[in-house]
């Protein structure tokens, strides 16, 4: 983890993992916050209400008015706001999302309305527990007078799925509550990408500008850029995780200057789903390639190993392949956000976005021969 500094600033966890095994009681008996339990004491922790890298299955068993049906490692279970907040109290994360009733992007209007209603109700319950938790932590602080007071910040969940109206309603109510930030939920859940900007805008127009907004579950860099332009502040790292799982090394240029350098490098093999934004290390073309994953990348994997070695590790199904790829991909992804921050600070965000999008579209204009060979066929099962 330390190898990802200074770009990495916070670690995201799924609060649901701590409902049962390890349970809140177990964490409490440990006597310290989740940071210490997970062996990451120097990292701020953000607890989400779901795992953005996993597609949740909406089974026949679903949530009801009092609880979410969550699929845990130990099986499915009902999670009420009280149970959820017990876990949060034990974890003491720096930030967390209140319990939410998630629905897929194509949920029917009635179900969407229901999810907004339930989430509002649960937000209020979570807020009550939150206040009680703060009292308790204050008490502890006075008793022990030891380390700095943990002060978990509650983010309200804004729902609404594919309905602009419901998005507005959910956002308005959430904005009235005394919360530290907002989590725009239900994106990356099967809704059409084209509809997303309007849905986000519908919610954002009612949210205060001085509080952070997080969105989890977006897939591509382009989607992230759109969300940034609209005013989202925090994103997850599911994209590099998915890339790693499929043996890809991210290499999309982060700056226009980099692009020129890359064009001088070999073209990637389009037949295997690669393009100039990512390399498919499974491809035989890397068998004897002594170069690092990405020339000039300062990550641990690129400084110490070659494409040929990564290729070999993948083909022999060795764990080290995903260790190294995840390091590189996460490093690259975080570098992307660094570039975005620079662009905003220089007042150049729109130009950056325009350049980035045009670059990707440019890839679609391939020479005739390659189109026949099946370029563009390279659609991996998970959108990358």
């Amino acid at each position, binding site marked *: 983890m330390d190898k990802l500094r200074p770009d990495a600033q916070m670690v995201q966890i799924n609060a649901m993992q701590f409902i049962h*095994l*390890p349970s809140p009681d177990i964490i409490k008996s440990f006597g310290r916050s989740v940071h210490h*339990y997970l062996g990451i004491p120097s990292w701020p922790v953000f607890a989400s209400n779901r795992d953005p890298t996993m597609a949740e299955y909406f089974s026949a068993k679903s949530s009801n008015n009092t609880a979410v049906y969550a699929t845990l490692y130990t099986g499915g279970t009902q999670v009420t706001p009280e149970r959820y907040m017990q876990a949060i109290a034990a974890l003491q994360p720096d930030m967390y999302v209140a319990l939410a009733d998630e629905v897929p992007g194509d949920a029917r209007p009635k179900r969407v309305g229901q999810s907004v209603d339930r989430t509002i109700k649960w937000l209020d319950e979570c807020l009550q527990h939150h206040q009680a938790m703060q009292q308790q932590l204050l008490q502890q602080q006075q008793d022990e007078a030891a380390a700095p007071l943990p002060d978990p910040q509650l983010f309200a969940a804004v729902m609404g799925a594919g309905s602009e109206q419901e998005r507005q309603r959910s956002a308005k109510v959430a904005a009235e509550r005394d919360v530290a930030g907002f989590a725009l939920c239900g994106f990356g859940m099967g809704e059409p990408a084209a509809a997303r900007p309007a849905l986000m805008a519908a919610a954002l127009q009612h949210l205060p500008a001085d509080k952070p907004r997080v969105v989890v579950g977006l897939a591509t860099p382009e989607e992230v850029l759109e969300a940034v332009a609209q005013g989202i502040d925090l994103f997850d790292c599911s994209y590099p995780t998915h890339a790693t799982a499929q043996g890809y090394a991210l290499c999309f240029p982060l700056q226009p200057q980099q692009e020129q350098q890359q064009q001088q490098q070999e073209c990637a093999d389009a037949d295997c789903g690669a393009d100039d934004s990512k390399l498919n290390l499974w491809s035989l073309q890397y*068998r*004897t390639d002594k170069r690092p994953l990405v020339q000039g990348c300062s990550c*641990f994997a690129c400084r110490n190993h070659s494409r040929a*070695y990564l290729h070999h590790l993948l083909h*022999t199904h060795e764990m080290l392949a*995903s260790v190294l790829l995840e390091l590189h991909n996460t490093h690259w992804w975080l570098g992307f956000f660094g570039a975005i921050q620079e662009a905003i600070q220089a007042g150049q965000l729109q130009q950056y976005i325009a350049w980035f999008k045009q670059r990707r579209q440019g890839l679609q204009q391939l020479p005739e021969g390659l189109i026949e060979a099946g370029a563009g066929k390279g659609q991996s099962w998970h959108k990358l």
Partner: protein
Amino acid sequence: MLSKACRRGIVTMASAELPSSSSPALQFQVLAQQGRARTATMKLPHYTAETPMFMPVGTQGTVKGLTSEQMQELDCHVILGNTYHLGNRPGPELVAAMGGLHSFINWPRGMLTDSGGFQMVSLLHLADITEEGVTFQSPVDGSRMLLTPEESIGIQNDLGADIMMQLDDVVPATNTDLARFEEATHRTTRWLDRCIAANKRPHEQNLFPIVQGGFDVSLRQLSMQQLIARNAPGYAIGGLAGGETKDMFWRVVAQCAAGLPPGKPRYVMGIGYPLDILVCSALGADMYDSVYPTRTARFGVALVDTGVMKLKNAAFAKDMRPIDESCSCMTCRQYTRSYLHHVVTRGISSASILVTYHNVAYMQGLTRRIRQAIKEQRLPDFTRAFLTGMFPAGNVPQWVVDALDVAGISLEGVAKLKPAHSFYEEVQAVQRIPAV
């Protein structure tokens, strides 16, 4: 590295008294001895290792999930690469084109490759041994293939490890046909000669013979005689692949360690249980390899002085202690048994890396403690304390009591059983030493 006491000890002893040897690609120098045990430095082309030494196995060019940097942090001196696996993928020509195995995987320290023969016999259904070599069905396309001594060395030359193993005629320990063991003994020597002749890089890569002879004292003696005559830089004690009883096992190690030249390293192949390593080191062996510590980690089993800790056991769900309070490895400094229990029970493969890290740290720590004990002339006390920890009720197995008696270490007060062997009658060539 050496304590003041040791340095003094060595200065007062004439260094000519301490065994050593010098070969083109290996210099071995014993630093201290106690009983049959010794601690030494072994200078290899890529690294100077210290013995007794445990070598983790990086089968396919990686030690299961650990980075090269972590392996160095863990104080590993030499790691193993499997010729059979690497010979398949990525193949010797590719590794050679990459500058050798060291360069390909970016491991700067010592490397040892086995011959490929053992995996063939154990992994492949239709492996068959003839004078020519080991014939087998290719795992890739089922075609008939042959691994000869020449080819094994050819592949190993391409891989470029500091130490290569000869292709030997491996007889399963469960075989009861003495004639087969005899055939294997002689054939191994003939194959050694072919390996030596085929070695294209004798000044950069060491070639170790492997002593055979099954469980027959005179066959072992004969094998040693023949192999020693080839004046190799070091020797391995083979044929202890599993299937034999511990009783048979220690006797072979005792006989061979005593019979091999004192100035050269002695490598017992396939040994990884901490208890076995301690006993073999006491008997005079120097090098060990095994997948055990790294493999058992992937089942959630952590190694500790008292034995093993099965982290998947529900008892650990609420145990907030580290695996081992006396261990200073990253896993023990940062993680609790409770956390490890929860992540290993979910089958998250990267969770096993944390246990792997600890287990490698444990093995390196164990061999470090053994080396230090020999340097400080307190191996018997160390051994007794270790066994007391592992067998608090005194039920040390008979084989351990017997083996350590031959090693010159008494377990009086530690073990309920008394030595009950007749080793010195069975192996007249080995001189008795008193047990202290």
